[in-house]
């Protein structure tokens, strides 16, 4: 621990005011079924043993590395990467002096076809997060896991744990059965608002169809690189279905979806909205106006245009200085380091917003 901290000091040249870091995307992993059983009632423990997880099959692409984790993120304890709090402290929280980290647990509760089972898994996951992550580590906050294909069950879980101070967001995955603007998901947003929580949409999941609108591709890189398309579809749906006109205080964080595609999408949506306004007369505001007001982004995987000036143009076009939030995606292979991920050439003020202030304000952290 001390070694890492010392190395870090040296690498920043001893500057007196290092920017504070809030990491908006950390993955905590349930290490084993034995851990899960501690939090599952007998009925669902038996179900889990006998039948196990059942989601949409046929969309599996072996990921570049086991569990998509960095080689060096496997703890000496022998537990899976991302499941050992002590090692996460050492390798991430202490090493980079992270003020707050937001946990996004990706255990598959939300994608279960058996919705009641999914709800039980979500409850177990959230109770595990409280007991084994939030209580022992004051720097961590977490996202509420919900069975998002059932609005009632999801809202029930949000109401159950939504006032726990450790939970700062409701988590959905970007690949849902239907686009998130569809009415069935509205109850989730209302529940989030009851507890003054933003809704996070994270990379991943398995929808009811292929990862592309053109069918199933062949390689992991197409699945991984296809997620930004899924994010774009969700933005289109949420905006065009009038979710924000109905729920004007709703805030949505797009996590691990990239952001370079957003400005062109705003332009395309505005163009379509002007031409096709007769189809959705209730949509009063230009989509770009709604997007600027309601969507936040995390930075990882950082966009990397070949020219620094393209990055500056991109930020200006996006107009999201107050809505961009740093994230590492620890312990995954495409980890972004707090020390080097944000391109140089940004003002100190903007870096400060990206590294901590925007997240502090969205998630209500002190």
């Amino acid at each position: 621990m001390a070694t890492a901290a010392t190395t870090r000091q040296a690498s920043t040249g001893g500057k007196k005011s290092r920017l504070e870091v809030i990491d908006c995307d950390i993955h905590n992993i349930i290490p084993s079924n034995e851990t899960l059983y501690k939090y599952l009632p007998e009925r669902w423990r038996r179900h889990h043993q006998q039948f196990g997880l059942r989601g949409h099959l046929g969309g599996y692409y072996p990921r570049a590395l086991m569990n998509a984790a960095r080689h060096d993120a496997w703890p000496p304890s022998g537990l899976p990467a991302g499941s050992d709090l002590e090692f996460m402290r050492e390798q991430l929280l202490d090493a980079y002096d992270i003020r707050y980290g937001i946990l996004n647990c990706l255990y598959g509760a939300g994608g279960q076809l058996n919705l009641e089972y999914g709800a039980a898994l979500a409850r177990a996951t959230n109770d595990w997060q409280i007991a084994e992550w939030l209580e022992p580590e004051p720097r961590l906050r977490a996202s509420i896991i919900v069975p998002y294909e059932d609005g009632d069950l999801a809202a029930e879980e949000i109401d159950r744990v939504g006032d726990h101070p450790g939970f700062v967001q409701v988590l959905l995955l970007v690949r849902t059965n239907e686009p998130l603007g569809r009415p069935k998901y509205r109850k989730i947003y209302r529940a989030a608002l009851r507890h003054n929580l933003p809704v996070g949409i994270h990379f991943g999941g398995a929808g009811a169809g292929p990862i592309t609108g053109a069918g199933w591709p062949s390689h992991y890189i197409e699945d991984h690189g296809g997620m930004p398309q899924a994010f774009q579809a969700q933005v289109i749906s949420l905006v065009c279905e009038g979710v924000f006109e109905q729920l004007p205080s709703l805030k949505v964080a797009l996590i691990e979806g990239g952001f370079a595609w957003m400005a062109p999408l705003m332009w395309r949506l505005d163009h379509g909205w002007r031409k096709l306004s007769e189809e959705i007369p209730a949509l009063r505001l230009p989509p770009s106006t709604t997007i600027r007001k309601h969507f936040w982004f995390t930075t990882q995987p950082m966009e990397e245009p070949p020219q620094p000036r393209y990055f500056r143009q991109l930020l200006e076009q996006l107009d999201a200085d107050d809505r961009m939030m740093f994230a590492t995606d620890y312990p995954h292979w495409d980890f972004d380091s707090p020390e080097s991920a944000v391109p140089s050439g940004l003002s100190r003020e903007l870096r400060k917003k990206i590294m901590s202030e925007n997240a502090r304000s969205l998630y209500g952290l002190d």
Partner: protein
Amino acid sequence: MVRESGNEAQRPFWSGRPVIDCDLHNEVPSLEVLRPYLADHWCDYIEESAFRGPDADDYPKGAPTTIRPGLEWEGEVEGQLALMRRQVLDPLQVEFGVLDCAYRVQGVHDPELAGALASAINRWQAEHWLDRDPRLRASIVAPTQSPVLAAREIDRWGADARFVQAVMPVRSLIPYGNRIYDPIYEAAARHDLVVGIQFGGSPGHPPTPSGWLSTYLEEYAAMAQVFQSQVTSLIVEGVFDRFPDLRVSLIEAGCTWMPSLMWRLDKEWRGLRRDIPWVKRPPSDYIRRHIRLTLQPVDAPPSGKQLLEVIGQLDSDEMLMFATDHPHWHFDRLEEAFPAGLSDSLARRVLADNARSFYRL
């Protein structure tokens, strides 16, 4: 490359410059017009089953994006062609106009019927469009869901120089990088044809990775992402490595999203190239070499300066090809069909030179 130039605004963009329009729509008004080209078997089948055409609705009949409001839509060829001449070919003094017929035989599950319809459409295009106006070029409609039959159809027209590309809808059953499509690319290579990927299609699965969208506006906006998936697939699955001379046009795809896709794919490739060792160069390099975009709809930002920035971010003056997308509604006056502020040399490339060399016109 992109430069503001002073007296650009005074004269219309086409004045003194050759124009090639890479996206004009010729619509099959009804199955009736195809009957003369269909075998008796299919005529009987259509009659008895009350088949009315592919299960597709890429361009809802009355939507403003399909046909600009206030236009009299005259369905028969004479009417369509007269309108096209009056609104585009004559005023812009178009040297060549490329027809992109969007009749979706690819959405017909029976490959034999799809093939018969495609053949009929191409004969109809040749007789009723190409024979009538020497400025026109056309796209071969082919049952691309059945690549062997599609290749046969491409071979049928390969010797007719007026057919300059084979067209496929962007929404496919499986992505176009997959090897099952190789017969199509082999046929395109045999005849030195462009493969065009066009807005729309109805393969039966949802248009997004997260299901079916409620409205046409959403589906319209989301079509850009399907193009992004196809570009990814073509490169990643090695089509341009197997067919190093293949040229692919993206038709009616929008174009401002392309720089962001290049950056993302290059980054994905740096991280995951081990999985796809046949992809030797950064994906953006393949894109600039093999892929072109038709101009309309531009999906332009509100500021002209930002549009010039985005065009600059393509890092290529060869990728854009002028198109009006007639009769779809993307601009109100012809003057607005082309971005202001391009340097003269870039404007000339976009208006004609890029298409001339890409389509070998």
